[in-house]
């Protein structure tokens, strides 16, 4: 599965009343700096951003989500964020969580020339992969993007998933293949990093709590 078909079962099961939009090209990253999920952005009634994209986990719904939330922790953060949204809904521009345009710009994600270059490599990698499968040139551009912007997790998840799907013949036979984020035992892993190593590097406390290989014991 690819594109909207991956999201469709979830969108239909949720039967939400809000629009559900598909971003296959990482437009939200290029335009607003969304580099991981879940991230949330607030836009006011005039079309002005009042909080730039920031990490924000929703309150868990359903047994699996509750278990995952317990594992990852931070339930207070989740509740605090929902309270912030409610405060903005009630108070609008007077909410202390609604930021001025200057604050929005300065609090948006850093973007250097290297980040722009990473995005260009990633877009080429995606284009080549969709067009002709997981080629050497696609891998070259994925790895270039990963090296230029190591903390962009979506660039990595997409690449790992693309490789795993490619190696299983273009299919996701068990429904889990597309989640591949670390090499299997003895698997040749052509990327410059993997999920476990990145967690240890960027979120050492969480990596320790999840007892990932290479994490410092706490």
């Amino acid at each position, binding site marked *: 599965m690819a594109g*909207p078909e991956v*999201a469709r*079962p*979830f*969108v239909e099961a949720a039967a939400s009343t809000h*629009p559900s*939009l*598909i*971003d296959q090209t990482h*437009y*939200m*990253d*290029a*335009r*607003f*700096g969304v580099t991981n*999920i*879940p*991230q*949330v*952005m*607030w*836009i*006011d*009634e*005039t*079309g*002005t*951003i*009042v909080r730039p*994209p920031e990490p*924000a986990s*929703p309150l868990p719904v359903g047994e699996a989500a509750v278990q995952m939330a317990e594992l990852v922790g931070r339930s207070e953060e989740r509740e605090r964020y929902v309270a912030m*949204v409610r405060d*903005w*809904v009630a108070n*609008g521009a007077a909410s202390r969580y609604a930021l001025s*345009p200057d604050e*929005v*710009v*300065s609090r*948006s*994600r*850093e*973007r250097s020339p290297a*980040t*722009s*270059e*990473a*995005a*260009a*490599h990633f*877009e*080429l990698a995606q*284009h*080549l992969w969709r067009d002709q499968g997981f080629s050497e*040139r696609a891998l070259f*551009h994925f790895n*270039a993007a990963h090296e230029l912007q190591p903390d962009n997790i979506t660039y990595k998840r997409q690449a790992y998933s693309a490789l795993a799907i490619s190696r299983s013949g273009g299919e996701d036979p068990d429904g889990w293949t597309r*989640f591949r984020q670390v090499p299997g035992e003895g698997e040749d892993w052509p990327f410059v990093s993997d999920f476990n190593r990145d967690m240890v590097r960027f979120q050492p406390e969480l990596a320790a709590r999840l007892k990932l290989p290479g994490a410092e014991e706490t």
Partner: protein
Amino acid sequence: MIVDHLDVAPQEFEAATGWQIKPEGACKAEVCVPLGGGGFDLLTTAERLGMAVVPEPDRDLWAVGPESIGGRALATADASDFSLPSLDGTPFRIGSLRGQKVLVVAWAPY
């Protein structure tokens, strides 16, 4: 944005990047970056806006990265006009929600 030629038209550039080419320069909402006069040129404009241009020589393709001018992902807080496809492929314009608060939640099922 991916292109197979470098003589991109200003309208094509605007549709892909949100930067509109005007007499005063490349503009997004209230922000305008001077382009030094003359006709529109992709490479010059990309350089002024801090957009990387990465070639794929095997396929005669180039990818143009997003602007890095100002060192931030957002050059402006304006988000009045952008659109993404909904599940059935029809474009949804965020501007159609004007007058309401909008919470944009990025998620993925993987």
